């Protein structure tokens, strides 16, 4: 019989140990799954490692994968702190990409680069924020379950993207493929590391982490999100305008996801297409949890998960290991992480009970 007793103090060591344990168990279960597919897991992991950190170039690829994760996860941290489950970063990312693409595709091409990129950045932020506004308002005023509303809106967003790609925005010269025309150079985010795909979005991410950190630690909004997350009743009692905070925090969170979508198409893909990797919206949830909702930790965690993704694409190409294995590893990490949070709250005793 297991018996739980409340813990008074949590050591930093334990807090460090749990994410590490989670990653170990995630990799272990992943290895077993790979073994079942008759592939040598050690080879696969080696390939992932090489694919992520093997050379300067592969490391820059890891950073490319990490960029949207950083942007989205720091935004999620803000709303997760108030126990608002934004599962809709996927859709907010898509809408940010669509709205910023509009300006890339339809503004005259001779606009100064700085101006166009500023417009696109704002459009990305706005697209995500507005898409996030819908579930936020519904939650704030009508108490509509945000997990369900944000998720259903993800699918709606996906089909909006498909509509544009199969319809009005399809490049007539794409031979029927659902692609827009290529963005002109003045719509492409500049690279920040030579001979790589690392773009300005990474800087956006670091700035966003700093802003979110500041919001959480230093501002009234941050204090209020803590209160709301701690107890809705207490928040009302304290006179906090809970609907307003939900809407503001959710719009910031959505804006950052939208910016991630903008950065991805403007910095990496350079056109709009159906496959623009909105799945980052789900992976970022894992990044946010793995970092204990600390924005700067989220940068490091995002790079780790970015490495896993970069390596995952490598083994998909070189070893024909389907990318799904990365999701398996990530989900097991997440399971272990939330399962072992109990260690932070309780000490566990094994206790034998006598039989009558």
């Amino acid at each position, binding site marked *: 019989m297991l018996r739980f*007793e*409340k*813990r*008074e103090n949590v050591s930093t060591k334990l807090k460090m140990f749990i994410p590490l344990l989670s990653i170990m168990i995630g990799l272990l279960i992943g290895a077993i799954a790979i073994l079942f597919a008759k592939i040598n897991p050690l080879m696969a992991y080696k390939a992932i490692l090489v694919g992520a950190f093997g050379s300067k170039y592969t490391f820059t690829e890891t950073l490319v994968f990490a960029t949207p994760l950083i942007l989205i996860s720091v935004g999620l941290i803000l709303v997760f702190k108030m126990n608002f489950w934004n599962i809709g970063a996927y859709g907010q990312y898509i809408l940010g990409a669509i709205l910023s693409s509009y300006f890339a595709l339809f503004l005259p091409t001779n606009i100064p680069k700085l101006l166009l990129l500023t417009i696109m950045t704002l459009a990305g932020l706005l697209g995500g924020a507005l898409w996030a506004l819908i579930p936020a308002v519904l939650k704030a005023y009508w108490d509509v379950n945000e997990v369900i509303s944000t998720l259903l809106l993800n699918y709606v967003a996906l089909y909006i993207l498909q509509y544009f790609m199969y319809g009005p925005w399809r490049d007539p010269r794409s031979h029927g493929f659902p692609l827009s025309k290529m963005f002109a150079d003045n719509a492409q985010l500049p690279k920040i590391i030579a001979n790589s795909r690392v773009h300005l979005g990474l800087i956006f991410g670091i700035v966003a982490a700093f802003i979110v950190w500041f919001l959480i630690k*230093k*501002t*009234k909004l*941050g*204090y209020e999100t*803590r*209160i709301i997350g*701690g*107890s809705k*009743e*207490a928040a*009302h*009692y*304290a*006179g*906090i*305008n809970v609907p307003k905070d939900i809407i503001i925090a959710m719009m910031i969170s959505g804006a950052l996801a939208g910016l991630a979508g903008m950065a991805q198409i403007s910095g990496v893909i350079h056109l709009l297409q159906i496959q623009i990797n909105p799945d980052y919206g789900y992976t970022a949830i894992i990044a946010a949890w793995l970092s204990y909702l600390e924005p700067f930790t989220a940068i490091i965690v995002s790079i780790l998960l970015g490495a896993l993704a970069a390596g995952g694409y490598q083994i998909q190409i070189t070893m024909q290991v389907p990318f799904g294995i990365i999701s398996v590893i990530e989900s097991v990490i997440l399971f272990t992480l939330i399962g072992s949070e109990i260690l932070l709250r309780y000490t566990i005793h094994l*206790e034998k*009970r*006598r*039989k*009558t």
Partner: protein
Amino acid sequence: MENIVLEARNITKYFPGILANDHINFDLYSKEVHTLLGENGAGKTTLVNIFDGLYYPNEGEVYVNGKIANINSPLDAMKFGIGMIHQHFMLVDTLTVVENVVLGFQKQGFRLDNNSIVKKIQEISEQYNLKVNPYAKIWQLSVGEQQRVEIIKMLYRGANILILDEPTAVLTPQEIDSLFLIINKIKSDGKSVIFISHKLEEVLKVSDRITVLKKGKVVGTVNKEHATEKELALMMVGREVLFRFDRKPTADGKDILKIENLEGYNDRGVKRLKGVNLTVKSGEIFGIAGVAGNGQEELAESITGLRKSSKGKIFIGSCESTNLLPSRILKKGVNYIPADRIRTGLIPNLSSVDNAILRCYMRKPISNTFTVNFTKAKDYANKIITEFNIMVPRLDAPVKLLSGGNMQKLLLAREILEEPILLIAVHPTRGLDIGATELVRKKLIEARDKGAAVLLISEDLDEIIMLSDRIGVIYDGKIVGLVDSKNAQINNIGLMMGGSKNLNVQKG
């Protein structure tokens, strides 16, 4: 002597940081009412929870009918004929009486045969005079009726040993009398009762023997014939219970809170306020007496803006404040000690600092337009903690690690230091030990003496009478009587709490 049906030998139980039961010995005869008497935190509930299998002792054994009994769960307890009625009723609100009675009952078949269950419930009802409608849902019943359902539930299962944990706390004096009749009936039927209370008068009325607990230890067991109130009080607290507060004479202040025909609903959409009228003046404590669930909490929440009222008016100072936002009402100088201190008043997972500034974080000097100055916040928290002598492990430790008394002191300090013109305190001493209770009461009087209007809502009638200048009795969503505390008669108040009309009282 009769035979022993239940015996505890050397029971020890600790929780982190607390020794709740320290080598306790206790026995219960058949056909006996044996009372556990002690202050809050003396270990009474822990001990009976062990009998009921909710807790498992770290040391010691329980014997039932002379045989060692290994009770791992309430289900085991039931097999030994032990049935417990908790202080917070273990009833499922949305289920009917019938459904609650058969919940978890092992001998119940897969399909529910409503007719036969109802028949058996009615038999028990008649035998012990426990009237209740078997088809009603629990949330539709009064607290007294709910308690009867709890008793029926245990008798239905054939309980031989009935444990009643503070059953009188939620009843009117008249309901208490009828509960005692039921207890006597159960006893004369050959069953035994463990009765828990900290009220001396009723303990002497109902018990055969009394065991006094203090800080987890047995102080002694006495027969009722040899016990006096004074003696028991001394055993219970180790000193004489003497609450006497110096206070200024009642000032004739101006009206601070005025409520006219207030109506409102609870969360389930049931009308709970049906036309409340009252006035509270500065420099007085206005006590609201009443049985739980007659609209007290809805009233407090309506005044503070946490609940919308459907009709009527509330004035604070001279301005109307009906249905204003809570933040606006707070700004008017209304502070509030809510009943649910752990969820509403405090945020258990956050630090003392975060909790200390809950009501002033939006203002200078703690914050500017946009940012919070946490250095100043820390100073403020430190000030509160020293001034009220609150024991805190670290300033940044979550407040859930504080004891109940220290939590309440933190909450009270935060609200009183705001120097409100109107202070609303709901069950401010519930669950606190003697020391903390005394401090809380003293501070309420102090606030009054400084000129605040205090609205005190409590189920503890003694507390109401002790602290209030005027008392209003609430019943079924209305103030049914106003009494000056100087000539308050507990019997009359009790009758009004139970809904009796036509009493000779002043009208407000």
